[in-house]
């Protein structure tokens, strides 16, 4: 075998384990789901194999699913914006701090050592009827009766922000950390105030990180189902809860498959639009 042939083969040899894993663990199960979504659940016994469009018709026409899908997208959007607003200053602080960057990044990662479910449930101890906040307010004397603060859309968003903020901070940090600090100094030497320099130079150059963090937060919140279960009320179900309910609750695998594919397709289209208009590839090119 010639050297060229060997060199041409090398990347494929290196990629084989990853490609195998992706194929077996992602593509194949996804194909199963696609097939399942065209089957029909029978009242008793095994599902009926075949090519039926009933599940898709239900998923696409029932207003109930459409409303929850829109609500899920709305919650995800609010969560993403909140993460960006809270995460950017934190990321900026870490990127510009001298020396103890590593310590700060470890602190940022620290919550990941605790289960996501436990972290979400901790809000019950803070916001619950006999939680820390109510107890404190009653002790001070601002209120006489505990207030019901939990189990609404706000607490769901709160829980999601709590969960997703580190992802946002890390993504923004990586792009801020790659920006030459001389650029800000150059901007100030030319007459820009710190704020003007930030808006003109640092912010545009950190957009790829902000965009990547935003996409990650949006997709992860749109697919979440634990947070609404723990922190949401009966009317705060998100789309993944419907999938869970269909498959685990009603054992309706065909409908659950159609619903989960619907969510996947909606998110896929959003990612494409996002990529097209925020032009992440374009921004990355600008950074050369």
């Amino acid at each position: 075998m010639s050297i060229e042939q060997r060199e041409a083969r090398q990347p494929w040899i290196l990629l084989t384990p990853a490609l195998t894993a992706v194929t077996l663990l992602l593509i194949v199960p996804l194909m199963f789901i696609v097939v399942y979504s065209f089957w029909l659940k029978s009242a008793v016994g095994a599902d009926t194999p075949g090519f039926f469009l009933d599940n898709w018709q239900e998923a696409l026409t029932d207003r109930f699913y459409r409303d929850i899908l829109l609500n899920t997208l709305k919650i995800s959007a609010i969560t993403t914006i909140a993460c960006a607003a809270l995460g950017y200053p934190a990321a900026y602080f870490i990127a510009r701090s001298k020396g103890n960057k590593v310590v700060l990044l470890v602190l940022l990662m620290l919550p990941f050592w605790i289960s996501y479910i436990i972290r979400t449930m901790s809000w019950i101890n803070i916001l619950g009827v006999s939680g820390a906040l109510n107890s404190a307010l009653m002790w001070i004397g601002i209120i006489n009766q505990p207030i019901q603060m939990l189990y609404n859309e706000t607490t769901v968003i709160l829980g999601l922000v709590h969960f997703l903020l580190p992802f946002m901070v890390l993504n923004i940090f990586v792009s801020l950390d790659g920006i030459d600090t001389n650029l800000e100094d150059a901007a100030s030497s030319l007459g820009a105030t710190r704020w003007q320099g930030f808006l003109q130079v640092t912010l545009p150059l950190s957009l790829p990180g902000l965009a990547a963090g935003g996409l990650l937060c949006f997709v992860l919140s749109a697919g979440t189902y634990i947070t609404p279960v723990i922190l949401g009320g009966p009317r705060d179900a998100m789309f993944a809860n419907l999938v869970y309910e269909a498959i685990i609750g009603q054992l309706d695998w065909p409908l659950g498959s159609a619903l989960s594919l619907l969510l996947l397709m909606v998110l896929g289209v959003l990612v494409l639009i996002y990529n097209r208009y925020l032009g992440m590839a374009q921004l990355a090119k600008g950074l050369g």
Partner: protein
Amino acid sequence: MSAVSLSQIVKRFGDYTAVHQMSLEIEEGSFVTLLGPSGCGKTTTLRMIAGLLDPTQGDITIKGRRVNDVPIHKRNLGLVFQNYALFPHKTVAENVAFGLNYRDVAKDEVKRRVAAALELVQLPELGARYPKELSGGQQQRIALARAIVIEPDVLLLDEPLSALDANLREDMRVELKRIQQSIGVTTVFVTHDQTEALAMSDQIIVMSEGRVEQVGAPEDVYNTPATEFVARFLGASNLLDARCTESAPGRVLLDLPGFPRIDIPKERAPRVSGPGPVRLVIRAEKLHLKAPGSPAEGMLSVDAVVGNVDYQGQSARYFVRVGDHQMQAVNMIEDHPFAEGERVTLQFRAKDCAALPVESRP
């Protein structure tokens, strides 16, 4: 009135003192170089003038205005960095126009001045390109254009040539000097490269360990080093222990074992006060290797043996042994370089020597 004046500037970082009691006057329109090895405080000094660092003590004045409390964006300075620091997401024209947008300059005036600045750095065609499409030398010219288009009171250059490769560096050196002279802007240039400093400066400030070692025109600093540090840092010098036997008016007489008596003009030994131990300084290129027995018209001569030869094409650096002394000489090569082990006569002029008092450094 000085364009820039530093008085009694001290800069400490925690326990570390980067700049000790530095005072400096920079004349309007002059090209002044802060020269020294890394860690000597030259960049710290530049950053204090720029307003990127605050001095711990002392005053900084720019055009008669005390600027200690003036933030960088109000100092009207042009700053050029070693790594160019062009805004990668803006075109060349937008980069150059950046500073004008914060000054009350009308739109077509901005256009005109950007074009003029690009013309001045000889890259008039590149306005629409992005920085990453340019070579290093071009990027540095654009950075220079961006700094001078705002007509700064002082142009500050922080090792602007160090990132360029050798040939380009020499071209840019000439170019930079030409541009500076054509607009007459007061310029403070930081470098560790003595060739750049000697070639470009009106005045050189040699720094070491946060202190000013010498201030003077390139020729003065080169020919009459004020301290051993300067003698060693600029060019290749031989420093030998000698004894001053007599200090007559206008003359200093030195004795050195194995050498004839050396009679140095007083202006080349301004700090030698009287008889006692001194350090004799002879530049490597002022020592001439000759065949043994060559006539020495008006020159002192001493026998030597050639050690290592460092061949450099048109010239060679010889390491020679004179009695117990190791010395180096840089000579143009006439026919063939001298060979290792050859016996030669070393010739030099007494007026090319300098003498320093022996320093007792902590």
